[in-house]
C-alpha cells in the first residue's frame, strides 16, 4: 500500500515552499532557523 506520505516529516499543507527549509532526503523534519545559513551583517560573525 506504499508509505503514508504525510508522515515523512514534510508539512505538505504549508502555504510556503518546502525546499528553502528542506532538511534533506533522510531528515524527518525541516531545517530550523539555527540550521539555515544566513547572510548576517559581517559584524555579527563574532566567533
Amino acid at each position, binding site marked *: 500500500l506504499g508509505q503514508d506520505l504525510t508522515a515523512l516529516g514534510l508539512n505538505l499543507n504549508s502555504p510556503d515552499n518546502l525546499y528553502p527549509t528542506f532538511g534533506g532526503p*533522510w531528515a524527518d*523534519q525541516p531545517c530550523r*532557523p*539555527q*540550521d*539555515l*545559513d*544566513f547572510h548576517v551583517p559581517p*559584524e555579527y560573525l*563574532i566567533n
Partner: protein
Amino acid sequence: PLGAVPLQKEHQSQFQMMESAFYHMPQPSDSERLRTYLPRNQCSTPVYYIQQPLPQSDTLEFYQRLGTETLFFVFYYMEGTKAQFLAAKALKKQSWRFHTKYMMWFQRHEEPKTINEDYEQGTYIYFDYEKWGQRKKEGFTFEYKYLE
C-alpha cells in the same frame, strides 16, 4: 504479471557498495557550514519532548517572546544563521543596540546626559558575553558610527 526479477550481478555489487554506505550515512552537519558551537545534528530528545519544530518558530514574533538571555544565547552561539538574525532583530525591538566596535549589545539605562550627532553619553546596560550577564556602565560614550 511482472513479478520479481532476480538482481543481475552488476546490481548485486552495487547493492554491496550501497549497503556499506548505508552504515556511514551522511550526517546533517555534513551539508552545512561548520558551526563552532551547535552543529546541525539530530540530538534525540526524550519522546515526551516536542519533536517537531514549534509552529511559527522561524518568525520574529516567536523570537520576541523569548527571554533576553535566550536571545543572547541564540545570537552568540548560532552565528551566521537565520536564528542569529532573528534574535538580533528581536533584541533591537527591545531597544538593545549592537556596538560593532566592542561587538556587544547596549541598552540605554536612563536619559543620556550628552547627545549630539556623533555620540551620546550616559549610563548604559550592556550584555557581557564572557561573564554572561547584564552589567551597568556609567558614563559610557556610544558613538553612533558603531551602531549596527
